[in-house]
């Protein structure tokens, strides 16, 4: 039983990171109808920035805050420079844009900070949480920060005018313009926020997977899986999907014979495919009917 609880809690901790990545992916998907393949690389780059700041002597939470601000601005800049001009371009042009962004960020990080694996600090420490062997303080910190982030986002979108405007711009852009919302800037704002959310995910997972340019590859695949599982049209679904994928991944690795650490990923993806066969829009997604 203790093993089970332990695995579930550990799953919730990594699931929190998947939830953040899924949420970032869904936010951009809602705004521009494309999957951001470079979301993980953007998060990795943000994490490197925070690491660099700490190398220069900035304390952890200072580096954390500065990185969030820089990521927010960086996300807006990427949208303005690269994806705004592609807004009316065909899907494949956008896909090429995302792949280019992926490659550019990945190699720039390698060029600036090289590809060796680096230690990344945790502000929470890694002792047992509240004296219990079930979960470490860092894992508890991952969960705590994510929950705070999700609550903050919920209040932002539900109770602020700008949050309302962003939701309107994403759901019916033409009507949003007709009530006076600058939808183009709402998309940019969405990019900024998604990039900052990704940065949080990167900084929280870096002590676990270690810092290097390819650190987010696996995390992003789980994040995509979570987003698809929950439904790409539902931020709430993406978050639930993140936690489910995290828990399932851990339980499969522990309890299904012969799976272990190596086969966790394919097993998790197989689960997702089975869900999608039954519910193609994901667990919480809406079916989108398009007139042709």
């Amino acid at each position, binding site marked *: 039983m203790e093993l089970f609880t332990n695995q579930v809690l550990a799953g919730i901790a990594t699931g929190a990171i998947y939830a953040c990545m899924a949420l970032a992916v869904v936010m951009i998907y809602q705004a521009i109808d494309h999957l951001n393949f470079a979301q993980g690389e953007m998060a990795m780059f943000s994490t490197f920035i925070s690491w660099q700041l700490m190398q220069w002597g900035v304390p952890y939470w200072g580096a954390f805050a500065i990185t969030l601000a820089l990521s927010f601005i960086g996300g807006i800049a990427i949208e303005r420079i690269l994806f705004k001009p592609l807004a009316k371009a065909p899907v494949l042009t956008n896909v090429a844009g995302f792949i280019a962004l992926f490659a550019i960020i990945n190699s720039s990080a390698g060029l600036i900070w090289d590809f060796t694996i680096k230690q990344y600090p945790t502000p929470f420490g890694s002792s047992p949480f509240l004296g219990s062997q079930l979960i470490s303080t860092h894992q508890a910190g991952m969960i705590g920060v994510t929950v705070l982030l999700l609550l903050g986002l919920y209040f932002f979108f539900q109770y602020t005018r700008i949050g309302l405007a962003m939701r*309107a711009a994403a759901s019916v852009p*033409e009507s949003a313009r007709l009530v*006076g919302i600058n939808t183009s800037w709402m998309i940019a704002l969405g990019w900024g926020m998604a990039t900052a959310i990704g940065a949080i995910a990167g900084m929280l997972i870096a002590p676990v997977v270690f810092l290097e340019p390819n650190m987010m590859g696996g995390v992003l695949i789980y994040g995509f899986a979570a987003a698809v599982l929950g439904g790409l049209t539902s931020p709430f679904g993406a978050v639930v999907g993140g936690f489910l994928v995290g828990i399932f991944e851990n339980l499969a690795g522990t309890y299904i014979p012969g799976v272990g650490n190596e086969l966790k990923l394919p097993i998790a993806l197989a689960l997702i495919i089975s869900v999608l066969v039954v519910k193609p829009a994901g667990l919480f997604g809406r079916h989108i009917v398009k007139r042709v």
Partner: protein
Amino acid sequence: MTTLLNVKDLRAYYGQVQALHGLTFSLNEGSLTTLLGANGAGKTTTLRAICNMVRSTGGIEFDGKPLNNRSTESIVRYGIAHVPQGRGTFTTMTVEENLQLGAITRKDNAGIVSDIERMYAHFPVLKQRHTQQAGTLSGGEQQMLAVARALMLRPRLMLLDEPSFGLAPLVVRDLFGILGKINREDKVSILVVEQNAQLALELADQAYVIETGRIVMSGNAKDIANNEEIRKSYLGY
């Protein structure tokens, strides 16, 4: 009487296809003007051109200020509320959120709150459903919501694109009654595009008839309604 909207030699294009061929018309402050015409005559395009949602040339002046080359979202800030064809409901949001979105450019929170109450007085059904997702409303209720959303801007001019479309005759009567009341009591000028010419002419004071992107007839709504020849050849009733 002052001219609120002045449209001069308006030409609009969808890609290579020209949809409007030099439309000239005007709307007086406080009037309820209707644009009539058959399917494909260019009525919707005219409204879309006013809000810069379609490529156009020619002069559009609102209260003496040119609107050309302004973005759709900035034109709203002049006090022009556009209720698009199909109503443009934010279907995944609640009725109340739809109303708040209508006032998203306003800063006077107290005024917004009291205006929402005013809308609920105009349209009691919206109050009953204020926490409901707008997409679950019936067609008539959604049209009421669309009008209420537009009024939340406290507009000087409201553009309505076929408000009667898809509604039961009784609901249309109701809606048009409310539009007349808004026009008289709240002093909102209204430009309404309609295929239901009979009803629109009863309501309006001024009328224009469009055919294939040109104005072919204009005048007092009563005169047009009473002129059998015009009615038969252009309005089909």
